[in-house]
Each structure stands twice: as C-alpha cells, then as structure tokens.
C-alpha cells in the first residue's frame, strides 16, 4: 500500500529489489528499446528501474521474457 508520497510502506525485508537496469545494460538495450520489446512505455521501465513503481507479476514476466532472463534473476525480495 502506498504512503502519502506514493512510496510503498513495507518493511525492508518485504521490499522488491530488481536488477533490471543491469540486465538491460548487459543486453545492450536502451530503455526505449526494452519498452518496445516488453510492450510498455519508457516511463514504466524507468519507474521500475528506479523502484518508484512495483511491477505486477505479469509485467515482471514480460520484462524477463524481453530480456531472455528468468524472472527471479531480475526481481528478488530484499532483506
């Protein structure tokens, strides 16, 4: 559940971390190219990379497929 500023209020051990930026860079893709591959906007890619937005399972799977990676290598529970 988001707080007043939209940031999720969750204990640290339940935060969703991601390695999307690293995986995208390793694949040699720009945010716009990854957005095209995943069928989302560049804003979505950036907000996920910056952890402003927690993606749904569906979006996480689409991003993983677009990068040819397993979803659990891209997203993980912190803590």
């Amino acid at each position, binding site marked *: 559940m*988001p707080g007043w*500023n*939209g940031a999720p209020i969750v204990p640290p051990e339940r935060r969703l971390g991601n390695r999307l930026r690293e995986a995208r860079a390793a694949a040699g893709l720009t945010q*716009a190219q990854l*957005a*095209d591959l995943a*069928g*989302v*906007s*560049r*804003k*979505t890619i*950036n*907000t996920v990379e*910056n952890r*402003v*937005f927690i*993606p*749904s399972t569906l*979006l996480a799977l689409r991003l993983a497929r677009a990068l040819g990676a397993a979803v659990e290598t891209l997203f993980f529970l912190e803590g």
Partner: protein
Amino acid sequence: MARQMVKSATPSPAERAERFSRKRTTMLWLEVALFGLWQTVFLVARWTSPHGPRAGVTTDVLLWMTWVVVLLLLIGTGGGTLMSREVRRLVNDEVSTANRHEGQRWGFWAAMLVAIAVYLISIVQPAILTYAIHAVVSFGIGAALIRYAWLERRADRAA
C-alpha cells in the same frame, strides 16, 4: 525517397504516447488549478449573494455539471480516447493505471469524509441538498485529480 522521409519523420506510437503522457500531466495540474478556482468563485458568489444561498439550475450549475462529467471521464479512463489503440495502451499502461487507481482511492475517501462532515453540519444547520452534493462531488474529484497529477508528475520526472 520523399515518402520514406515522411515516414521516418512520423513519430512512433511510443513517442506519441510519451508526449501525450507529459501533456496529460500538465493538463491535470491545470485542471486542478482551474477547478479549485472555479469552486472558490462559485461558492463565494453564492454565499455572498444578496439573495443568500439558493438551490436551482442555473448556467453555472450546468457548466459545473458538464465539467464534472469531463473530469470523471478523465479520472475513469485516463483520456487519449481519440488516439490509436496502440498509443492509448502505452499512455494508460501499468504505471499510469496504478496512479489513476490511487487517485480514485483518494477521491473516494475525500468524498466520504466530506459527506460525513456535511451530514454532521446539517444536524445543527440545515444544508441545501444541491450544495451538499456539490461539496461531496467537488472534493472527491479534486482529491482524485491532485493525487493522480502528483503521481504522474513523479513518474514523468523519474523517466
């Protein structure tokens, strides 16, 4: 050749979606400011009228109702109805939809709180029904718009 140049100059759906998204954020803030100003002018004019607060359908009430319907459509759909399906899908993708839903959540709670406040006030001072509804709807829409605009601006800044 010329045809190819025209084709390459045409923005892609992703580019059009990004532009529209930024314009929409600006428009949301503009709507917040104009809607707030309108409510202030409307209520001050009504309450300071020599005839006192009154019910009844007048031009300003009709304008307000039209505006409310437009804003509800914006909060309900995210806009972009005149754009192609592809652009609309990108404009209202997961982030924007989540932001819009969060705005709707704020709108709901604002409307409920104002409704409770109006109800309590009406116990000691009878309220005109149209004013009560006006307050509930306006605060609900205002809160939803502010929250939606705030989250969209934050997402645009991150991008």
